[in-house]
């Protein structure tokens, strides 16, 4: 049985994952979930971030795994390949995802790191492409990649492949504009399952809240929900916000479409948008500005009409025939 699961995930990690991304992408476009927000500039940002970092980062990781590690730890190649698959899976899942949680959280909480992660938050929509919309330097220093590569060198290669397949699926689905978790909140019979699910892994509701343009409004919460595969880290460290709702607006309230090259390669290239955090004279972290109507992804709910309260009391008399 375990062999079968390994094969399924192995395929998912290969062509299966590409198929998942393609199907999701087609569905998102078919349902119009980008809501005409995918402008020429945003298309360039998404496509450049999806392709160019892979050309740079993958050779670096290969060099690290095949040249650097053998020279630093010459006697340790496959030294721990006796670790049973189950435990290898748990070790990799915790080591990889907890490290990514910290990498992500520090880019939000340490002001000078924010601009390396800003590209991931600048889009005013959500979608499967968002998972790889990152500044190239942010991707290059993904610390969990180097830790996991070291664990692969030590002999945990097969569990690493399985974790990568599961993690890729969860994060892509959490970024997707398809709210697959909605039925879990709608049907009462599924509520216990929803309670467990939303505390264990990232779901569209919790991760979309992290990508909201507003925070502390009951739904949006970009100050937390940092978990990538596991949401459990947010629950443990007190950075979780669960509302079972989706934000009214995504992105950054003061974003004005920085050029794709500045978003991909800041600080090598700077934005030409005056006042932008990525501009040459830009602030490290700008304060939020009030949202405008065109920034709303979901229309705001109409406030219920207040009941008229009359000050006078009327003593109505029956009408005489």
């Amino acid at each position, binding site marked *: 049985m375990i062999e079968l699961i390994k094969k399924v995930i192995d395929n998912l990690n290969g062509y299966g994952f590409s198929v998942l991304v393609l199907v999701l992408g087609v569905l998102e476009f078919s349902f119009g979930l980008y809501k005409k927000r995918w402008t020429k500039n945003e298309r360039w940002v998404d496509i450049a971030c999806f392709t160019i970092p892979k050309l740079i980062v993958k050779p670096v990781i290969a060099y690290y795994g095949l040249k650097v590690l053998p020279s630093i730890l010459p006697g340790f190649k496959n030294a721990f*390949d*006796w*670790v*049973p698959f189950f*435990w290898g899976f*748990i*070790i990799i899942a*915790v*080591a990889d995802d*907890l490290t990514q949680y*910290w990498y992500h*959280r*520090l880019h939000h*909480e*340490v*002001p*000078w790191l924010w601009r390396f992660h800003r590209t991931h938050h600048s889009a005013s929509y959500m979608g499967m492409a968002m998972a790889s919309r990152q500044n190239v330097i942010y991707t290059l220093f993904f610390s969990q990649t180097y830790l996991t590569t070291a664990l692969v060198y030590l002999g945990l290669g097969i569990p690493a492949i399985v974790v990568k397949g599961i993690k890729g699926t969860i994060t892509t689905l959490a970024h997707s504009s398809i709210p697959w978790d909605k039925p879990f909140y709608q049907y009462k019979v599924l509520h216990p399952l929803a309670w467990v699910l939303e505390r264990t892994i990232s779901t569209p509701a919790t991760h979309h809240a992290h990508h909201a343009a507003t925070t502390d409004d009951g739904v949006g919460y970009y100050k937390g929900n940092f978990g990538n595969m596991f949401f459990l880290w947010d629950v*443990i*460290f*007190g950075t979780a916000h669960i509302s079972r709702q989706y934000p009214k607006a995504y992105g950054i309230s003061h974003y004005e479409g920085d050029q794709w090259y500045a978003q991909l390669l800041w600080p090598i290239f700077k934005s030409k948008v005056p006042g932008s955090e990525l501009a040459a004279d830009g*602030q*490290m*972290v700008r304060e939020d500005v009030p949202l405008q109507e065109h920034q709303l992804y979901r229309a705001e709910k109409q406030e219920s009409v207040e009941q008229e309260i009359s000050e006078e009391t009327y003593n109505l008399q029956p009408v005489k025939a």
Partner: protein
Amino acid sequence: MKLEEAKKTRIIKNAFLSLLLYALPLVLMFATFYFTGQRPWEKKKQVQKTAQPASKTKSENP
């Protein structure tokens, strides 16, 4: 713009807790080995030992 003191304290506290979380799978794995008597690393040694004489015989009698 500096990191707020309260945030800094929380990061440090949470980082220490993370060290425990990193160690937890290893602790649980070795605890399982201890209670069940499994010694998977010895299996690997045995495989290596049985493999070595075979290679020697091959080189002596090509």
